């Protein structure tokens, strides 16, 4: 079988981890979001999120900006263009995999009725 024919070849290895996929997806609809908001959305600890963000930042998928609002220090996370492209590809592959089940069920259903 040649590489790239099965939809699983479109999956991004880094995003096959559910937590990392949630982080990147959460950032996909906004320009940037606070670290704390992503932590609460994904429901993980600060340290777990830091670890995953470090991996995503090293891959060039997520950017990290530090600043202050008034006297409070803030950390902002944003999805990079490379991250957006990787997410789009990954979600496309997931959809293909999910739909292939539907097609298979349809074929099998038709087969049993014949």
């Amino acid at each position, binding site marked *: 079988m040649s590489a790239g024919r099965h939809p*699983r070849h479109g*999956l991004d290895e880094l995003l*096959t981890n*559910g937590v990392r*996929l*949630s*982080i990147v*997806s*959460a*950032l*996909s*609809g*906004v*320009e*940037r*979001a*606070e670290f*704390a*908001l*992503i932590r609460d*959305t*994904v429901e993980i600890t600060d340290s777990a999120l830091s670890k995953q963000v470090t991996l995503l930042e090293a891959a060039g998928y997520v950017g990290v900006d530090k600043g202050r*609002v*008034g006297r409070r220090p803030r950390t902002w996370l944003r999805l990079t263009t490379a991250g957006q492209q990787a*997410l789009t590809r990954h*979600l496309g592959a*997931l*959809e293909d*995999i*999910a739909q*292939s*089940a539907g097609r298979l069920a349809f074929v099998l259903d038709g087969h049993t009725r014949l």
Partner: protein
Amino acid sequence: MTTEQAAADLVRARQSAEQVRARAQWSARYLGVFAAGFAAITLILGLMHPFWLRMSVWGAVWGVLVVGMVAWARSQPAQPEGSRRWRSAWAWAGTGVLYGVTLWVGDPAQLGRMTYWVPAAVLVALPLAAAAWRERQA
């Protein structure tokens, strides 16, 4: 990866995106407050006198409005996409132009006349109010 896993991942991804996007939808309130603020400063400029009181109150209201709203926007945990912010540019331009025209026509010829300044204040606020309504529906 199984088809069930793929479907579950898709659902999780959609939920995360929607949850955070919802926290970035504060711009309706932001636009609405500025619409009310523009109406207020239009009324202040047209109806308040003497001159020194008018300019003092106008400056104070405008200053509090801008500083307060910029600080509030910066404190929001998620910022909307750039393209989304530009969607209301027409409303800012519309309110700005109407505000300028209202003052140009009404000052000093219509100063103190409620029949001019109240409809003018509503008109000035209209573009930003419409943008706020549109953002709320989005």
